[in-house]
């Protein structure tokens, strides 16, 4: 394979990444080649390392370089709370807030008849097992406020609420949000969940 076709192959692979098309992939590859020592070498080494070590945490489904992720191995995070999220990106979003100090459970999707995703595919048996094992007192359902997300939340609540306190995230006006631009459903939910000032 010639050097040019290697580069073409790299461009082709990068163009499959989310947010990149053939033109932007070409620009990115050109930039990497020009910044060989500052970007290309460290990137290729890091990618090789991550490719060799990245895996799903056996306990919570987070992405980690160990069998158990840092959150699951940290004793400080054993607060008796588990936050159930749909995807690893949601876990990262929760972590960015720095507000939640407990552990997580990543479902990897939501119940969906359309995509043939049932309770078995979401690792709910593992979640049930974690409740006595980690002395969990509260399960926080931080799922998307969509029909699929809430259907999944209701299913999990049915499954667990006899054994543990099950809560869900509030819905309402986002910080910086203007009422005029919100959909009817969000305003209705915010009004229903109003609280004293």
């Amino acid at each position: 394979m010639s050097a040019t076709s290697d580069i073409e192959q790299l461009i082709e692979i990068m163009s499959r990444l989310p947010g990149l098309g053939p033109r932007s992939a070409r620009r990115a590859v050109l930039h990497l080649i020009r910044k060989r020592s500052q970007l290309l070498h460290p990137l290729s080494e890091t990618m090789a390392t991550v490719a060799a070590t990245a895996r799903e945490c056996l306990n919570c489904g987070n992405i980690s370089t160990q069998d158990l992720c840092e959150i699951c191995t940290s004793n400080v995070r054993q607060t008796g709370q588990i936050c159930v999220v749909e995807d690893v990106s949601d876990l990262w979003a929760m972590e960015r807030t720095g507000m939640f100090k407990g552990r997580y459970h990543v479902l990897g999707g939501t119940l969906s008849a359309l995509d043939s995703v049932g309770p078995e595919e979401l690792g709910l048996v593992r979640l049930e097992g974690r409740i006595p094992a980690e002395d969990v007192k509260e399960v926080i359902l931080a799922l998307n406020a969509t029909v699929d997300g809430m259907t999944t939340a209701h299913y999990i609540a049915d499954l667990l609420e006899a054994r543990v306190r099950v809560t869900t995230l509030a819905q309402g006006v986002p910080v910086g949000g203007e009422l005029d631009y919100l959909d009817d459903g969000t305003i209705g939910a915010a009004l229903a969940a109003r609280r004293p000032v």
Partner: protein
Amino acid sequence: MEWQDTGIVLAQRQHGETSAIVEVFTPVRGRHAGVVRGGISRKIAPHLQPGAQLAVTWRARLEDHLGSFTIEPERGRAAQAMQDRLSLAGLNAVTAMVRFMLPEREPYPKLYLETERLLDLLPQVDLLPLAYLHWEVSLLAEMGFALDLTTCAVTGRTDGLEYVSPRSGRAVTAEGAGDWADRLLPLPACLRGDGPAPNTEIALALSTTGHFLRNASHDLASRRDLPAARNNFIARIAMRCG
């Protein structure tokens, strides 16, 4: 090709990085799919939740192409339905059943109106189970499998009707059923539109309509099971009994 209509969102799935394929139920065009450009954006996605009412314009070069929708939201129903488990299960059951039962691009204007009325009842959880049962009876009638629950198929009597024949869909009295009673389907009073309708009876009536819905499914070759969303809804109705 271009047409405009109003429609109820039945389902949507991501298409590419930014678009969504949305399936709507319209009075004139029936169950119809199309691409909504930018459909997964934060601005548009909330309006594409199942149950939402949209004004849609469909465009395609040829009639049999998938085509694309431009949408304008009229009203959403998902947010209210999400407040209650039975409501949300009802929304899932209705959208799943329309997708499962109706062929694409066949108009069912009467059923559309009944579906709209039923979805407007989603927040009223006391009325929802019975309204859903009547909607399923209408769905069967629209599919050409109307139940005849007025007179006994054997004796011709109009009172004491207790069973439904699984073959003909006609009512049968206990006397007419005789030794065949255990092979017939139950006919609770609520299915005939008589008397009170406790949730136990509604769940029983839904088992009867379920038998005919399976047979009426448009995909007769495979005779698939009815959607899990319908079973979940019936399970939730049964939970409310206890």
